[in-house]
């Protein structure tokens, strides 16, 4: 290639401290994940807020994959659309990767790649002889391919002034149970650092300086966080069918269960895990187990929800608890199964046939995923219905900086379950009667040794005594009670987090992983354009009065979400009646996580500014 895209030489720039993004372009299956995580951890350990996002294909080995780390002194951890530093390791994407760089960016590349530095005179180039460095530092030829990745970490440590000791510390932590692996990687990082120190002259402005903004924080992915939440919520039954991106939630839960939930006295499990034959079976097993009284859950993604829908409806009508972790992603069949989307809101809020409605919880970071996992079990058992925890691939499979998790303060809420003693005292039990006026009936568990304990579970055709009935008033009474029960939910699901900005005419509504980009966009609008915005972060459906009030109090309300149709916007529109005309859409749907600049630009254009 001889055409020069931008002929200007990079100008000498002022130092940029703790504010940049790095992308590593590599080949799937080349073992770069550990190196990238170690780089992110090194920055994190220096007290600088950061996040890591892995953009990977539906493939085990061979296709291109990109890992992006963002470090930001102000704590912005959403994806940043523009890259500052690129590490080129993949011959298949090298030209496209280089072309996509903004002017003034930095490019590190493997000397074996056919790169002509003249094509982008506006970049700062560093050519690295990976093969030579790895050959010297790693005598075992079989390991070279893997440890090559640690060499760019060492090089970046030198260039960005990251303390090499922090990388060593991260490696020792990561390979706590494999000290040999830690050693091999430490040697490689050191070799990369030494080579860079001896051969490179720093010509770019990016630097890491120690801060103290990560104190008390942890790095974890959202699926591990939710899994841990379930383990501390006393989950006893997990059933699942493998599907990206929810498999990692189940696998994390299995690891935690095996580690922390074996009974010390007997050495036996206080839980059961079943890998089901499909999603129809996994949700069926959850309902069977919950019906018997276990705390049961499953995890899946959109296609799995489609298959589960009939049983989800049965859970609604027969009133059986279920917790479903939905790690949302794009598309059915082949397509973008490894890309993120907030795309199952419509599907989950009304899954199944008839007048079914289901509560949804929306964690926006790992700490909330941990808390909401616990809340979901309490709510499901209290309300005897399916509760969804709506993660997405971005939260689920990426590394997030998060507050450390708080140990639950409340005991488990096992809901309205009548014991033998209760039945003796009451002398009466009607399974579907609204005794307390909240729409929530009482239940008994199979195996309860009392003559009036048993009842027969069916779908919608039953009366208050759980006897088969096709009478119109029995059906209607039951449906009205179920509607009351759903109303009761409003006060029990986590309420929104509201931030009113004095004088703001514009309101933002966001949820889940759109939160970080939304916060950053609000600052951009304020700082760059003087546009003030209030912000309501939804944490659950159904909504409560605070949501209606927020919409009432603003001229325009932008609903920011990661799907094409504005699924949350439409749910809100149903809620607020005539005021729905105030609701505007900010819909990001590329399969890649939303970024602040997209929100800012979309809002400015709709505001005519």
């Amino acid at each position, binding site marked *: 290639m001889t055409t020069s895209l931008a002929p200007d030489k990079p100008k000498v720039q002022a130092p940029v401290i703790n504010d940049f993004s790095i992308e590593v372009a590599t080949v799937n299956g080349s073992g770069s994940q550990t190196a990238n995580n170690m780089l992110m951890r090194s920055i994190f350990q220096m007290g600088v807020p950061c996040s890591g996002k892995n953009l990977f294909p539906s493939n085990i080995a061979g296709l291109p994959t990109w890992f992006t780390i963002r470090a930001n002194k102000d704590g912005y951890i959403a994806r940043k659309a523009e890259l500052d530093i690129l590490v080129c390791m993949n011959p298949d994407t090298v030209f496209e990767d280089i072309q996509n760089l903004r002017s003034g960016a930095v490019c590190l590349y493997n000397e074996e790649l056919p790169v002509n530095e003249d094509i982008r005179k506006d970049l700062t180039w560093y050519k690295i002889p990976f093969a030579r460095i790895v050959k010297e530092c790693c005598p075992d030829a079989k390991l070279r391919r893997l440890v090559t990745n640690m060499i760019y970490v060492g090089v970046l440590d030198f260039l960005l002034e990251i303390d090499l000791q922090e990388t060593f510390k991260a490696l020792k932590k990561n390979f*706590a149970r494999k000290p040999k692996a830690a050693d091999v990687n430490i040697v490689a990082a050191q070799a990369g650092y030494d080579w860079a120190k001896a051969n490179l002259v720093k010509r770019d402005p990016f630097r890491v300086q120690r801060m103290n903004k990560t104190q*008390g*924080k*942890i790095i974890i992915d959202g699926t591990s966080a939710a899994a*841990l939440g379930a*383990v*501390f919520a*006393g989950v*006893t*039954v997990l059933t699942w069918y493998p599907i990206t991106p929810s498999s990692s939630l189940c696998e994390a839960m299995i690891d*935690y269960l095996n580690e*922390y939930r074996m*009974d010390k006295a*007997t050495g*036996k*499990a*206080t*839980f*059961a895990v*079943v890998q*089901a*034959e*499909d999603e*129809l*079976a*996994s*949700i*069926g*097993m*959850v*309902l*069977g*187990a919950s*019906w*018997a*009284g*276990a*705390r*049961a859950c499953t995890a899946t993604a959109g296609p799995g929800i489609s298959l589960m829908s*009939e*049983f989800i409806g*049965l859970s609604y009508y027969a009133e059986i608890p279920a917790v479903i972790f939905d790690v949302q992603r794009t598309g059915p069949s082949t397509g973008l199964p490894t890309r993120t989307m907030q795309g199952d809101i419509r599907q989950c809020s009304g899954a199944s046939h008839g007048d079914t409605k289901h509560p949804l919880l929306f964690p926006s970071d790992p700490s909330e995923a941990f808390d909401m996992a616990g809340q979901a079990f309490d709510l499901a058992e209290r309300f005897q219905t399916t509760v969804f925890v709506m993660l997405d691939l971005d939260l689920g499979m990426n590394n997030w900086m998060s507050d*450390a*998790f708080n*140990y*639950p303060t409340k*005991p*488990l809420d096992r809901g309205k379950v009548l014991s033998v003693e209760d039945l003796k005292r009451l002398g009466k039990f009607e399974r579907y009667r609204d005794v307390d006026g909240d729409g929530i009936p009482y239940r008994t*568990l*199979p*195996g309860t040794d*009392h*003559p009036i*304990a*048993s009842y*027969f*579970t*069916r779908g919608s055709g039953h009366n208050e*005594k759980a*006897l088969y009935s096709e009478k119109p008033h029995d059906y209607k009474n039951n449906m009205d009670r179920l509607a009351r029960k759903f109303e009761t939910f409003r006060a029990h699901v986590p309420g929104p987090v509201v931030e009113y900005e004095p004088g703001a005419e514009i309101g933002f509504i966001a949820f889940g992983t759109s939160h970080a980009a939304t916060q950053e966009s609000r600052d951009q609008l304020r700082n760059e354009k003087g546009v003030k915005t209030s912000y309501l972060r939804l944490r659950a459906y159904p909504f409560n009065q605070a949501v209606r009030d927020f919409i009432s109090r603003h001229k325009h309300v932008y609903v920011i979400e990661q799907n094409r149709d504005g699924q949350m916007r439409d749910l809100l529109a149903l809620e607020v009646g005539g005021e729905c005309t105030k609701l505007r859409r900010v819909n990001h749907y590329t399969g890649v996580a939303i970024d602040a600049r997209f929100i800012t630009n979309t809002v400015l254009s709709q505001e005519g500014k």
Partner: protein
Amino acid sequence: MAPEIATPQVPAEQRKQNRLGLILPDYQGSASTLCAGCGHDSITNQIIRAYFEMGIPPHMVAKMSGIGCSSKTPAYFVNKGHGFNAVHGRMPAIATGAVLGNKHLYTIGVSGDGDTASIGMGQFVHLLHRNVPMIYIMENNGVYGLTKGQFSATADLGSKSKWGKDNPAEPIDCCAMAVELGCAFVARSFSGDTKQMLAIFKAALAHKGTAFIDIVSPCITFNNHEGSTKSYKWAKDHEEQIHEIGFVPFFEQVEAEVKPGETREVQFQDGSRVRFKAVGKDYDPTNKEQALSELFKTQKERSFLTGILYLNPKQKDFCTELDTVDPPLATLPESLTRPPKEVLEEVMERLR
């Protein structure tokens, strides 16, 4: 107002108490709403009798079903047990879940040939594959009764519909499939053969693992005519018992001589024993190869062979494999299911 539970008729012989001091009516259910003369009702009666005679605590019974005429029947027996009418073809998953939640329940699933061999085939196969401890009865009439007489996948090739149409496909033999899949208790019976059904049900209650029982149970309304191979007449004329079955529960041990070539005995894990008396030739129900070859022969010759076709009481069941603590997972206290604060601290420390 109609009574919720049919008033049981209690003749003197039925006032006999079982080992729990309960009488037969303690095991009854609501009145059946199936067609008068339905084969399913006679199966229901033998289920009631088996649970009574085995002295199963009624409150520990979990009755599961899918959708169809057969799936209505759990409402007609053991009213003191909890029942669950699931969705079509998905009873195995619900039942598996119930067993996960409480492995001490006596779980029984009643399904039909449509609910099992068509819409529910996937879940049926995996239930057997896991060896979930429960009884699985397939009330087999060759038609979809509740949707008015369409052929099911177990209907024989050439069997005539009520409207004179020949069934165009070979039947799926769920017993042969069950043996192939490793099910360790596979039986076939006829709803008109009450004595054999009772013995099989009692043996099934003693078995630890999935006990699959295929029972030809004629549909009086849609499949009981001339030319049907699932009619009362056809079944009566064609039933061939492969052996006579005697069951001796662990709590009533009676010694009897085992004569090689004439009688065989198999012991269950709880000490109960089942005795097989040869009818014609000697048949070894613990021999998988023989079971399969007999089943292939019946398929070829269109014969109707009944009895316990295959039995292996030693096969590891699902709950043994899961190795959970002894109390039901459903009722474990928080002290056992929520790890202490130090554990969370330890995990957090690793992530800092």
